[in-house]
Structures are given as structure tokens and as C-alpha cells.
């Protein structure tokens, strides 16, 4: 368990740097975070199959749902970098603990839905935490100015690297705290509603989330884009033709 916590913290820290410090290599996107968390966490050989498929499902849904195609100034503060990590960690650790009361049903869809909801919810306080951490930089500006006045470049560098370390710590702390809170909530709530957690109901929840994800993707990629509908129709037609040709007649 401690090893899992350390892995979640490390991953959350690295992804937070990508998102907040300026790496911007796309590592901080939910799809990458969720898949990396799936590869890092190891719930045991009996869960090997699910430990890879559930993160992929969570990552795909969170990637589409948390894509905000507004300009940065108009975006709401959402910590998408740790959302994928927390979603996957809650799902995998919850699945491991709650298996006796909630067996893996409908191909692991239950845990995909649980992880996606955990990731969505975690992105909101994660965003507030990120804003609060950045606000603390303001109070250090005086020391930065003082270093410049006195020509102490090395001290300025130390202060600057300190802000990188704070970003790592913020990501690590929030990933672990969000995972712990998520697993605690899942452990407290899910066994109580176990009788209501049926295959068809989970399938319905998954289908609705997938539909909303496609609505979000439509908003991001088609609406408001020059000739967006035309290019989307071209993409759909191409995919259909390829499927008919490669699939021997039936899509």
C-alpha cells in the first residue's frame, strides 16, 4: 500500500510540473495521467487485465469531458493533470478492496464510472488548490526583487527552484489526498448501495457519460470551427468506407 501511495505521489508531482511549471509536454492531460497511473499501480496479478483496461476507459472519458476549448483566461480552474491519476487510483484501489461486496461486473464498467466520477469531482478542489499555491508566489515577489537589487542571482535561482519543488509537492499531496478521500468515500458509500448497482444501471451510466463526452468533443472540435461540420462529415464518411472495405461489408 505504501509503495502505491509513493507511486501516486510521484506521478501526481511530475504531472503537476508539466501542467503548472511550463513543461507543457501534454503529460498533464487526463488520458496520459490515467494510463500512467494504471501502469504504475499494481493491484496484483489477479487484477492485471483490469488494471490496464479500467484506466484506459477512465482516461478516455476524462480526456473528452475535461477538454475545455476556451482561451485560458476564460477557463475555469480545473486540475486536469491529477484528475486522471486520482480517478484511476480510486478505481483500482477501490476495486481491490470492495471486490467481495461489488464483484467486477459488466466488464469493469462499474469501476470506469466510479473512477471517472472521482476524477471529475477531484478536478474541482484540485483547481482551487492550484490557484491557492500560485497565489503564494505573490508573497515571495519581495524577496525576488531584493535578490535582484543586491545582484544575488544564485539566491534568485534558489527561490525559483523552490517554486518548482512546491509545484511537485502540490501535485503529490493532492494526488494522495484525493485518492485517499475517493477510496474512503467509495468504501463508505458503495457497499450500502450494492443492491442498486446492477449491470444495466452501470451500462446506462457509462452510456450517458460517453454521450456527454461526445457532446463535449463536438463542442471542442466542430462547433465554431471553420467548415467544422463538413470536415466532421468527411471524417465520418472516410471511417465508414474504411470499415466497410476492411470489415468485409458490415461496419
Amino acid at each position, binding site marked *: 500500500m505504501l509503495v502505491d501511495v509513493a507511486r501516486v505521489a510521484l506521478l501526481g508531482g511530475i504531472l503537476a510540473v508539466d501542467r503548472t*511549471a*511550463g513543461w507543457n509536454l*501534454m503529460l498533464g*492531460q487526463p*488520458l496520459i495521467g490515467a*494510463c500512467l497511473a*494504471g*501502469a504504475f499501480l499494481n493491484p496484483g496479478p489477479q487484477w492485471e*487485465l483490469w488494471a*490496464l483496461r479500467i484506466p*484506459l476507459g477512465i482516461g478516455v472519458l476524462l480526456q473528452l469531458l475535461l*477538454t475545455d*476549448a*476556451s*482561451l*485560458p483566461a*476564460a477557463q475555469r480552474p*480545473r486540475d486536469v493533470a491529477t484528475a486522471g491519476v486520482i480517478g484511476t487510483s480510486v478505481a483500482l484501489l477501490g476495486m481491490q478492496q470492495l471486490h467481495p461486496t461489488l464483484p467486477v461486473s459488466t466488464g469493469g464498467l462499474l469501476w470506469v*464510472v466510479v473512477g471517472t*466520477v472521482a476524477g*471529475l*469531482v477531484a478536478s*474541482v478542489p484540485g483547481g482551487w488548490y492550484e490557484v491557492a499555491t*500560485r*497565489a503564494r508566489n*505573490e508573497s515571495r*515577489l519581495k524577496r525576488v*526583487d531584493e*535578490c535582484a*537589487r543586491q545582484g544575488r*542571482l544564485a539566491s*534568485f535561482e534558489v527561490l*525559483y527552484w523552490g517554486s*518548482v519543488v512546491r509545484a511537485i509537492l502540490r501535485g503529490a499531496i493532492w494526488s494522495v489526498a484525493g485518492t485517499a478521500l475517493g477510496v474512503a468515500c467509495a468504501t463508505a458509500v458503495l457497499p450500502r448501495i450494492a443492491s442498486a448497482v446492477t449491470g444495466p444501471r452501470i451500462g*446506462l*451510466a457509462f*452510456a*450517458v*457519460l*460517453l*454521450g*456527454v463526452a461526445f*457532446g*463535449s*468533443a*463536438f*463542442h*471542442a*472540435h466542430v*462547433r465554431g470551427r*471553420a467548415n*467544422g461540420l463538413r*470536415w*466532421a*462529415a*468527411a*471524417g*465520418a464518411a472516410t*471511417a465508414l468506407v474504411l470499415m466497410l472495405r476492411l470489415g468485409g461489408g458490415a*461496419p
Partner: protein
Amino acid sequence: MNERTPALRSSDLARVTSRSFYLQAFFTAERQQGPGFAFALLPVLRRLYPDDEARGKALQRHLGFFSTHPVLSGYVLGLVARLEERLAQGEDADDGRIEQMKRAMASPLAAMGDPLFWVTLRPLAGLVGVLGMVLTPLADPAGPDWRVLVCPLLSLLTYNAVALPFRFAGVSRGYASGEEPGKLLRSLRLTDLKSVLERAGAFAFGALAVSTVAVLASSAGLSARDLGHAALVFAPFALGAAGAVVAFRLWPGRGVEVSLLSLLLALILSARA
């Protein structure tokens, strides 16, 4: 040229490039990327100014407000490095001119970079990763799912194939074209690139929609004759999508709220049914 003042070396510019990856670590509401800009420029200041006082003065010059697109920040850093070099060598440059050129370059790069990288390329890269999941065949249904590696890799490659060349070339190109920032801005052709990527995004969405519907139909075992069953299977998906399209039009950027509300509504309806 003043012989006591060394010229910048390519290794200095390489150091500036590597430091530009931390541009936003000290982001503040008041100065935005200002401290990050000064941090990235430190190797240049160390090379050009011999004593602490001169270095401190130069550092103060760059600690003020600065805001541009992080991926394109290298062009401004390179341009400013060239101007600092000229100032240190006693040529025609002063504090005011450096600040003026910095702002003249940073604002258009931010205005072009945000819609290109954040609004178009990053969502497209995510979509390509998702498309990878639908299009990559599952080699062994009982074995490890390699798509967990393929999808993130596709996303990372799509994004970084476009963004990294700008990051690595930025400082040296900005330095080389220090005299003509307008020409440099035009040569980047960011608006053309954006419209190509926009089309690619819409195309990928169309392909993803058809592929997903095909996968759902095949996993539910649907046939063309069984329209009633097909409608039942696709109804939650279609209703979720239609509701989201309307909701995002009214409340853009509210992905979390719209998703959770839709889920709640669906579960309430299913409990009553």
C-alpha cells in the same frame, strides 16, 4: 565591439531553451511569467555582465510583467538575448527599447499561440489518443491491453511533433532575427497551421463518432433488422450527447457540472423506471 564583453555562445542559448521549460513555475497574477522570463535569461546575463551589480540591474529589467505563450516564449527570449548582447557591447540598445521589443513580440505570440496550442492542438492530440483506442485492435482479449501504451503515445507524439520544434528552435531563431521581429512572426505561419489543425480535429471527431457507434453496435450484438433494440441501446448515448451539445452551448467550460448532472438525472430516471 567592446573586447571585455564576451559574445553569447550557442551553449548559452541552449541553456536558455532548457530553462524556458520552467517559464510558469513562479507565475503570479501581478507579473505573470515575468520572474520565469528572468530565470530563463540568467545564463545570458551571467555571460554578458561581469559583476553582480550589473547582473542585478539586468535581472531587475526582466522581472516585471511578461506574458506570452509558453511554447513560443523562446522567440522572445532569443530576441531579448540579442538585444542584451548589443546593450552589453555598447551598441544601439537601451532599457526602453528592450522592453518595447519584448512587448511587441510577446503580445502577438500570445494572441496566436493560445488559439493554436491550447484551443486547437491540445484537444486534437487528446482526440487522436482516444481514436487510437477505438482503432487499435485488441490482440488478445485475455492478455494485456497494449492500448494503454498506444493511446498516450499517440497523444504525446501528435502534440509534441508540432510543439517541440517551436520550443527547440525558438531561442536561436529569435536571436538570429533580432533586428526584424515582424518578419519572424510572419515566417512562423501560425494562422495557417491553426486552420489545418482545426480541420484535422473536426475530421478526427467524425471518424471517432462513426468508429465508436460501430464498436458499440458490435459489442451489443446489434443487427440492422433489430431497430427497436438498437434504439434502446443507443438512446442513453444519444440523449447524453444531445443534452451535452445544448448544455455546452449555454455553459461552455462546465464539463464537470454537465457530466455529473447528466449522470445524476440518468440514475434518478433508471431508479424510477
